[in-house]
């Protein structure tokens, strides 16, 4: 019997629509345990390790945002570094004016999200390929504008104030916890967004945009919302970057390198799945640590692997796992269950 005939042959009571194959309580509890364990790290591990993990948090947050844009909303942005930089500068500006940089993080996120609105208005009418380059031009423009203000460092940048007198070990720990918090909030936000109506609309758009529009889905609004969220997320990552580097330099915080990292991590890990960027970040950090002394090499290798995967393994590493185990750590889809 084909699926079509099987479903019509059974009475309606034998069907259930569930959110996931396995009980989401288990994965929720598991995630909580993981977060708690990670939170204890500053007490357990060396500060060198926590510094590396902060880097990983930054990459994971950015990659998750890029994944949201490209994998779910179909928006390929090559200019997210604009928001990374904006986030860093929000923190810097607030720190200069006396706020604690940690307290400035939420402002960086919100500020970047708000900044995303006029930027979206400028580029949203362009078709996907040209949209991509336009975001790049926007990022370059934002950097050039910020460089004109010498009060925040101009073209050379300046150190981040607000940490005078801070105990270094404590600072590292706080930075780490801030990173963990940003990442957890970001992933949770993405999960909840995709699990809700927005996720449905985005899937509909992905499958058939015209049909989605004609059935009432607000396509433009959905995409704009995603762009704003991604802007906020990258802004938070940028604020974190400023804190972890203790300085803000335009060339460093507006670097295209971030987009390269975001994109490659996502592709290798798995585009269009929430778990993908996690896997990709792990691969990326391992690669970076192994090749630390080889500078540009890890980007070259990463780029080549990403090209290969974009051509031959679009679902990435997580896609391979998912195909075998049907595992979803972050269940956002629906399953149709046939009761026997």
């Amino acid at each position: 019997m084909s699926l079509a005939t099987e479903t019509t042959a059974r009475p309606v009571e034998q069907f259930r629509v569930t959110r996931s194959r396995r009980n989401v309580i288990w994965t929720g509890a598991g995630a909580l345990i993981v977060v708690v364990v990670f939170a204890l790290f500053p007490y357990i591990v060396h500060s060198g390790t926590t510094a590396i993990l902060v880097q990983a948090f930054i990459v994971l947050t950015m990659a998750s945002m890029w994944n949201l844009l490209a994998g779910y909303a179909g928006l390929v942005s090559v200019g997210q570094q604009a928001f990374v930089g904006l986030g860093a500068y929000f923190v810097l500006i607030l720190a200069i004016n006396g706020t604690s940089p940690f307290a400035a993080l939420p402002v960086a996120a919100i500020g970047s999200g708000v900044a995303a609105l006029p930027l979206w208005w400028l580029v949203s009418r362009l078709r996907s390929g040209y949209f991509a380059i336009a975001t790049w031009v926007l990022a370059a423009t934002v950097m050039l504008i910020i460089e004109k203000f010498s009060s925040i460092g101009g073209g050379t940048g300046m150190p981040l104030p607000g940490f005078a007198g801070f105990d270094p070990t404590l600072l590292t720990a706080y930075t780490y916890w801030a990173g963990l918090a940003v990442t957890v909030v970001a992933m949770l936000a993405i999960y909840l967004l995709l699990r809700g109506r927005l996720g449905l609309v985005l899937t509909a758009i992905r499958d058939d945009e015209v049909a989605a529009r004609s059935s009432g889905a607000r396509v433009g609004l959905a995409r704009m919302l995603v762009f704003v969220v991604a802007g906020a997320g990258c802004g938070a990552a940028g604020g974190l970057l400023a804190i972890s580097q203790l300085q803000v330099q335009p060339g460093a915080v507006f670097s295209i390198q971030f987009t390269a990292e975001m994109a490659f991590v996502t592709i290798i890990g798995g585009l269009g799945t929430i778990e993908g960027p996690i896997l990709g970040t792990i691969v990326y950090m391992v690669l970076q640590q192994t090749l630390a002394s080889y500078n540009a090499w890890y980007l070259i290798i990463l780029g080549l692997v990403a090209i290969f995967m974009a051509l031959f393994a679009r679902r990435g590493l997580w896609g391979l796992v998912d195909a075998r185990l049907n595992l979803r750590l972050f269940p956002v889809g629906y399953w149709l269950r046939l009761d026997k």
Partner: protein
Amino acid sequence: MSWVNAIIQGILVGGLYALFACGLSLMFGVMKVVNLAHGDLAVVAGYIAIGVITVTHIPVLWSFLIVVPVMAVLGYVLQRTILQGALDRSVLATLLVTFGLSVVIENGLLQFFTANTRGIGSGLALVSGSFSIGSIQIGYLPLVIFATAVVVLLGLQYFLSTSRYGRLIRAVADDKEAAQLAGADYRHVFGIAAAVAFGTVALGGIAYGMYAQLAPTTGTDTILLFAFAAVVIGGLGSLWGTLLGGVVLGVAQQIGAQISISDETLAGFIVFLAVLALRPQGLISRGAQS
């Protein structure tokens, strides 16, 4: 008078920008590929030219005859293999692949040639010489480059409008399935279009290396973003619009430089954003684009 000089300079460099832009526009118009590595290819061509000249000591102008065809062939091969593979999958794949290529090329160049800038020295009076009309100074090289750009654009237009493959390129761009039904292998036609795009951008890259410095990141900072800005300002889908866009961009940049030397690039981007905001179809539009 320096303003007039600035505007003339801007017009002349606009020709170069148009040369960079026409390949980008062609690839998008024909196979809907936005080649994010487009600018990096110009830099690669420049580096190859430097290498060839260093090794063989041939005159600079001969390097064009060697490097441009080589890049054109490279374009055909890359299109038939990697880019076609990406096209068969999705638009996303083409963007990812070309972005990946861009990163790989730039970091590869960085790794092998360091971040130092290089120029294509020619020792020709052409490069540094200039002539004057009244109080206006016009450099020989910028003028020659502008003239070359116009000639190339004319050639491209002639090719597209009268030759058999030019027709096929336009036909495939309109409807590649219908072109197949007429016996055309669109993959081959795409390859030809890519070859033309790579050839023109290589020409631009070598020319650029003759009067400015090339660095690994020039491909994106300067060439790709400027080429794209020229296309948008001028109008998607119009060859002469691209020249106009290049000229407007160049003039805007030079005027910006007159205001403050560090505002050159910014001024160009601001004009780009203004066009994007107020007239997204560009100055010369050919009907519905986005």
